[in-house]
């Protein structure tokens, strides 16, 4: 799970060129790299988030035209930076995939990817409503899946499965309505 702690990684040949390219461009800015089941993950700082993504899209030899999915994650055990935003890039022309990650502290804002891929719009809205991660520069950060008056961030680990507000069976009102 904690990708940056892995010190030695083996990168297969197919991914090597991608990794080399990104490393050559950003070098120190890559906070961590991991490789698991043929998938390459690169962790970057929130400040470099948009720059790296835009580079991956625009560099012809990388050509990650598409953002396959963008999601949030919550690691309550990690006190300093409990939140994570994960983006999966896909290159249709080269049939390759890449995972970009960034880690955020509580209340820290992430820059939006909507300027790079339009499809990040709903994904970021969902991530915001589920984790409370605010995406700076997102033009339309409304609730997407939950009701407009919903309170809380349901996908955080401290949010109970049964919910906190609406949707529960109100046993306390039994016989009154």
């Amino acid at each position, binding site marked *: *799970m904690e990708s940056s702690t892995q010190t030695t990684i083996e990168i297969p040949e197919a991914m090597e060129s991608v990794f080399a390219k990104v490393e050559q461009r950003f070098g120190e800015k890559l906070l961590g790299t991991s490789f698991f*089941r043929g998938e390459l993950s690169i962790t970057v700082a929130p400040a470099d988030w948009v720059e790296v993504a835009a580079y991956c899209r625009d560099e012809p030899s990388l050509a990650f035209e598409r953002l396959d*999915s963008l999601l949030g*994650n919550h690691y309550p055990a990690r006190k300093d930076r409990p939140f994570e935003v994960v983006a999966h890039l896909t290159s249709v022309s080269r049939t390759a995939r890449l995972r970009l990650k960034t880690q955020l502290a509580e209340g820290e804002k992430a820059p939006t990817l909507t300027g790079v891929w339009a*499809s990040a719009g*709903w994904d970021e809205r969902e991530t915001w409503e589920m984790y409370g991660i605010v995406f700076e520069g997102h033009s339309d950060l409304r609730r997407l899946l939950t009701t407009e008056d919903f309170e809380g961030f349901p996908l955080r680990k401290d949010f109970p499965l049964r919910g906190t507000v609406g949707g529960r069976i109100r046993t306390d009102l039994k016989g009154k309505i």
Partner: protein
Amino acid sequence: MSASDRDTAHPMQDHVHMRKPKPRPTPEELRARKEATRQRVSGSVETITVSMGPQHPSMHGVFQAVLDLDGEVIVNTDARIGNLHRGVEKLAEYRTYHQFIPVTDRLDYISSFAMNHGYCEAVEKLMGVHVPRRARYIRTIAHELCRLSNHILWLGVHIMDFGAQTFFLICFRDREYILDLFEMLCGARLTHSYARIGGVAKDLPEGWEHKCREVVDFLPKRLDEYQRLITQNRIFLKRSVGIGIFTVEDLHTWRVTGPCLRAAGVPRDLRKDEPYAAYDEVEFEVAVEYNSDVYDRFLVRMKEMYESCNIIRQCLDNLPDGEFLAEDAAHVLPLKKNVMRDAAAMVQDFVHVFRGPQVPKGEVYRAVEAPKGEFGVYISSDGGPKPQRLHLATPSFFHGQAVPALFEGEMLADSVGIFGSADIVLGDSDR
């Protein structure tokens, strides 16, 4: 299979190239035209706002599109989903990997097996389970049947979006054959839960292969019948050619996948590009069209149906013997019939039910070519029996996001057809 290998040319050939539709505007022209409309109406015209959905006869499920209309032309759209949200991703974090399979049925309930399959592929990738060859073939057959049933249903509903009501019921009639096959296969018609981690739930029942072969031999004839009704229908051509054009760049940036992407001339098909199940062992052609309008999306899906029949036929021909479930005690649920007899199987069952499978730490992302588009599953595991985080990148979610962008500058009557051509199911979209 190359064209020469076949007895006849592609069954679509005669129909499609008989009368090629008139030249249509290029996407650039179209975009310029849309921009002109937008500038014309911006500010100067009083618009009326209508709410298309969530209770609207042509909105698929409870999708809501709030449209601003200038006369009959849509100038602004706000898409709203979430009326069917069930918190599937939260549920996943409280269920073992096995227990989550039935929940995936409820994502895209039109093609449940594709959802089961995509999830199981992701979990198998995470666990490193090797799926037996027979199971992979069975999965391929079921997946293609699923694609057939999805496309046939889509076809009926889509043509009904243009006002032809009879076609809807004709399609439902033929979908029954496939649902019957699924009922024989796993006892359920809609929510199959047929895939298992490491294989499938049951072996093919007695006589199923024969029945399946009958259906896939018979369906192309029905598809020909559809073609005679629809493909050259003047009204359908007028309603669909040149409508809802999306450029390849737009499709990528909105993450539109599946038939909609292939209709724009991108031969992207995960069955070819990242083969799973037995797709690398069968030969088929990726259906591609080039104009990226409503009509071409229809053509792509029609071609795909012929190809699906073709794939199923090949799989039935080459169906290998052997196990239909991997023998992998750490990750795979044992067969129920063994649990009562075999001590090892009983222990295995006990462990899996009460604790869950053994999973390595790590994260995987696996996508399969579901009938509606690419269905991606992201699993992050902390080594426990339940996922630490499971994310579903479902095609309808992104299509629902992208399609309102297509609406702008189109006419109200066309919006229905464009929306239908994206093939959206709200269970898939809201999760």
